[in-house]
């Protein structure tokens, strides 16, 4: 019985202390004091955590229709999607981001990304230290994702945009990559328009899968401006750099004279977006050019237009996209014939980089719950060239394969996207 006696004596204590307190405070006052204490405890509990962790996951599967050139060679979309089974790993990926506040003005951010196609080997996308020089002006140093396109900085976060794959005519022009460098971002307002103006400087290396070489990009610097006005936003970017490319190792060893040594290159992009909460539309244009010996690099123009409509949980959308190359007449013959057909070396290089394609994509997003979305889309590609010059568009096949000719080129995708 010792427990019961404890309880009884405890009760007696409570009974005596309550009337004692009640003499000084009314019930309401005590309640208010208790609420105050509770709120203060809660305040401490939800102070911003030292390290904030956010993540994203995309699972995507895709497949194409049977696409062949005139000779019957199989062609695959972006080198990995064909009609023989679902490709589950090209777009499947996961990322984790750590934001840590070092002081009121300084912050460190690291974002890790693992791609299924790379066996989830972890790659660092963002790693920088930021410092607020003033409330509106921030300087950062470290690794960043290239700020070339309207959506390029969150390209890995599929949940952030309506498609499963960003329009590849626009977004494959420069393989999306990171750069090491420094940047400065100024957030300001003119009337009702808010602007984020960013200038950056850095360098990077871009693996060139076309010819198995590496573009060494140095002194990359540029500016981009994002302006928001109510339902409208605009994007402008310009960047230029010095590119070095060693072609002496490319078989059959006849491209050496076309190598680049610190040659000027630029990319410029323009985008506009409208979103009133249910109806949205966006359009983007891009141009890439590299100054190369004998002008072998085809100036590349790209763009797309998208419209979509949110109705409850559903967001159907339609996109038209294009990529096109500069004219063959701009190529200056280098005087190095490549056997067996003895085509001029600069023209051979031009052909390996020139892409032309148009496409329609119809898709829909279904928001399962805030933080999880399901998506489906189908893309039909057409117009890979004209009578003067035919390209493979975004398709490729065995050495010597040609333009898509047989079958209707379609790519189908399904995805689950999440942020957490």
């Amino acid at each position: 019985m010792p427990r019961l006696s404890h309880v009884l004596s405890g009760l007696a204590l409570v009974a005596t202390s309550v009337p004692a307190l009640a003499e000084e405070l009314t019930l309401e006052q005590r309640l208010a004091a208790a609420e105050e204490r509770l709120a203060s405890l809660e305040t401490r509990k939800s102070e911003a955590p030292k390290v904030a962790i956010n993540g994203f996951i995309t699972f995507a599967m895709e497949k194409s229709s049977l696409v062949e050139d005139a000779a019957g060679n199989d062609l695959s979309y972006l080198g990995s999607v064909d009609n023989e089974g679902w490709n589950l790993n090209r777009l499947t990926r996961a990322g984790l981001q750590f934001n840590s506040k070092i002081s009121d003005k300084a912050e460190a951010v690291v974002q890790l990304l693992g791609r299924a196609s790379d066996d989830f080997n972890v790659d660092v996308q963002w790693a920088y230290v930021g410092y607020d020089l003033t409330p509106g002006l921030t300087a950062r140093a470290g690794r960043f994702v290239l700020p070339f396109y309207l959506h390029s900085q969150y390209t890995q976060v599929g949940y952030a945009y309506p498609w499963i794959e960003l329009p590849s005519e626009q977004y494959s022009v420069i393989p999306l990559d990171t750069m090491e460098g420094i940047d400065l971002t100024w957030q300001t307002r003119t009337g009702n328009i808010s602007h984020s103006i960013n200038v950056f400087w850095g360098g990077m290396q871009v693996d060139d899968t076309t010819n198995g070489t590496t573009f060494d990009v140095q002194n990359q610097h540029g500016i981009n401006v994002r302006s928001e006005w109510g339902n409208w936003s605009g994007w402008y970017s310009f960047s230029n750099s010095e590119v070095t490319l060693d072609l002496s190792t490319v078989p059959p060893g006849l491209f050496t004279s076309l190598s680049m040594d610190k040659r000027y290159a630029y990319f410029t992009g323009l985008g506009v977006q409208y979103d009133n909460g249910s109806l949205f539309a966006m359009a983007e244009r891009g141009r890439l050019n590299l100054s190369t010996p004998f002008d072998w690099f085809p100036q590349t123009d790209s763009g797309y237009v998208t419209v979509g409509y949110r109705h409850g949980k559903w967001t159907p959308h339609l996109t038209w996209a294009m990529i096109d190359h500069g004219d063959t007449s701009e190529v200056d013959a280098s005087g190095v014939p490549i056997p067996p057909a003895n085509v001029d070396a600069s023209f051979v290089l031009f052909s390996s980089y020139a892409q032309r394609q148009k496409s329609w994509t119809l898709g829909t997003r279904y928001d399962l719950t805030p933080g999880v979305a399901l998506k489906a889309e189908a893309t039909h590609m057409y117009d890979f060239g004209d009578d003067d010059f035919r390209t493979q568009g975004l398709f490729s096949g065995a050495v010597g394969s040609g333009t898509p000719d047989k079958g209707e080129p379609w790519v189908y995708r399904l995805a689950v996207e999440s942020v957490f």
Partner: protein
Amino acid sequence: MKRLLALLVSLPLALITQSALAERIAIIAGEQAPVSNLTLTEAQQLFSGQLRSVDGHAVEALDMPGNDNLRNAFYQQLLGRNADQMRAHWARLIFTGKAKPPREVAHSDEMRAQVTRSNNMIGYLPADKVPANAKVLLIIN
């Protein structure tokens, strides 16, 4: 003619129920805060991560927890966006290091406590539940 009359009568009724459904939500700051009002544009920019200072004073927005009805009504009325859309909006900013979403409080008591104790926090509460030691910067209908 009867039908037209009925229509004319029901139209204003429909409008009244529409606006009665929309909750009056007050955007508030502590009584000591240097900021004393916000324009609609400033409020929209503040709660979507595009504004970090008002009239040169650094400010910090506070949010109700993720599944809260007041929060959903607030963003629907202020920005015309639902919870899914706000989540996608913040994903675009968080993963590029551009901005962080407002810090979430646990409930409206904490919202009131946080705002009234500081001079740089800006939060929101139903307009009829604003405490005496807070000032209203803007009313959203």
